[in-house]
């Protein structure tokens, strides 16, 4: 199906494919500059005292894994480096597997981090906003046991952790609803605790209004760029940094397409004007 007389859209698809695939194989290593939104997330983690407990919610599924997984991994790694204890939750059923994958990837790098002491996976809970609200009263009623069925009393990490008052911040990696918006509305707006996180590039414009003076959101990692910035801030280049070359070239190609589209438009307009004049 041609999108106009000159270019078949399948050519566009083919060029995009090469622009994305080739830089992943042959890394160019373009520089990365950090933005304030990414720095805010980083500062929040850096300023959290060691030994504090935080909630990291994996509210995404394999569909958005390429964008959200690298940033989730970078944040978890940073928390481990700072000896921050992590309580993992998931508002999406597949989020549990996403979290498990990250912790298994980080295991060789942090062999001293023990499950139940330094991190715990509470598993998936349906209900979205209702679940977040109920957690404000008491985590134990929402999550009586972890993902493996271990009762909460047997998990040392949760000793004295009852509700949002006992955690330092919530970080949600979110691909939609329920996700970061609901965490902001309950944990920040109702309980006054800092909320931060990351979203896919596509949904970032809708979430950015929450990064405001009231700090409803304490920074935001937007898409692969946000993930790459975080990797840069923690000096741990990963898949997002590698992916930035691909994204850069793909964006450049899109800009070239836009230019071609405009040239075509103006040429057609000129031809039409000439034809009209004759």
């Amino acid at each position, binding site marked *: 199906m041609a999108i106009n007389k000159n270019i078949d859209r399948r050519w566009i698809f083919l060029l995009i494919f090469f622009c994305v695939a080739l830089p992943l194989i042959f890394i160019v290593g373009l*520089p990365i500059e950090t*933005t304030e939104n990414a720095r805010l997330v980083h500062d929040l983690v850096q300023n959290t005292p060691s030994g504090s407990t935080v909630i990291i919610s994996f509210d995404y599924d394999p569909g958005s894994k390429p964008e959200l997984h690298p940033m989730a991994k970078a944040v978890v790694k940073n928390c481990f480096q700072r000896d921050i204890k992590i309580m993992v939750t998931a508002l999406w059923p597949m989020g549990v*597997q996403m979290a498990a994958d990250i912790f298994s990837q980080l295991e060789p790098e942090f062999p001293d981090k023990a499950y139940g002491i330094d991190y715990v996976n509470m598993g998936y809970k349906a209900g979205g906003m209702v679940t977040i609200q109920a957690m404000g009263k008491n985590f134990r009623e929402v999550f009586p046991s972890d993902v493996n*069925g271990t009762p909460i009393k047997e998990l040392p990490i949760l000793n004295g952790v009852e509700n949002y008052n006992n955690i330092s911040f919530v970080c949600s990696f979110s691909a939609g609803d329920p996700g970061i918006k609901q965490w902001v509305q309950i944990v920040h707006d109702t309980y006054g605790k800092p909320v931060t996180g990351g979203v896919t590039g596509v949904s970032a414009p809708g979430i*950015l209004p929450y990064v405001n003076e009231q700090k409803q959101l304490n920074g935001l990692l937007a898409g692969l760029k946000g993930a790459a910035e975080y990797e840069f801030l923690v000096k741990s280049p990963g898949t997002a940094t590698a992916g930035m070359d691909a*994204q850069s070239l793909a964006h450049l190609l*899109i800009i070239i397409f836009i230019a071609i589209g405009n040239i075509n438009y103006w040429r057609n307009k000129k031809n039409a004007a000439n034809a009209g004049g004759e």
Partner: protein
Amino acid sequence: MKRKLPLIITFCVGIIIIISEFIPHKPFGQISGELEIWFLIISGFAILLGQLSLLKVNFLKIKFKQKNWPFFVVTLVSFAIMVTVGIFWGTESNHGILGNGEGVASLIGSKPFDYLFNNVYQHLSATMFSLLAFFIASAAYRAFIARTVESNLLLIAAVLVMLGNTSLGSFLTGWLPQSLSFLHLPNIAEFIMKYPNTAGQRAIMIGAGLGLIGSSLRIILGIERSYLGGE
């Protein structure tokens, strides 16, 4: 009565939910949570209806050999495989009726359900999401044409944000001194996203919020009934 009863229920539940937002005292404080749980329970039963619909529609298409019928065979076979392996050998943290399927797991590395989930489902899902890259390119090609002053502005903003959101932006303007950091493309992109974009988004959100309130009131007051299947 067929119409009146749902309208009465809608009215009562709507009013209770609004009141419960402001009254933490029992029973109001718990009501919205309880009603959400009811909704989840009803949804659980409705899932069965969904599965039956899926099976029926696909089965009929195969039975009458409708156009492209082999596609529907693929759907049903995939459905049957996932359900069967899930029931027989369970998932990562759940037992199946035949136990944990250690024999199969030792052969393929994990339980069959998890194997299919990790190696088929995850990749298919990511592939569908990745299609966005191609579609964004073709949509951008058509959308950003400099026809008017407004579309010119849109075009310029789009190019700046696209460049700023990549390493290319840093590459092109990274050499500028710190005193001119506001001209760095990533900073320009962030400015556009943070101010003009956020202002527009908020305006849409306020309008949509008011529309939501209006629609909700119409439904609670029983003025809007088409969701019940017409007048």
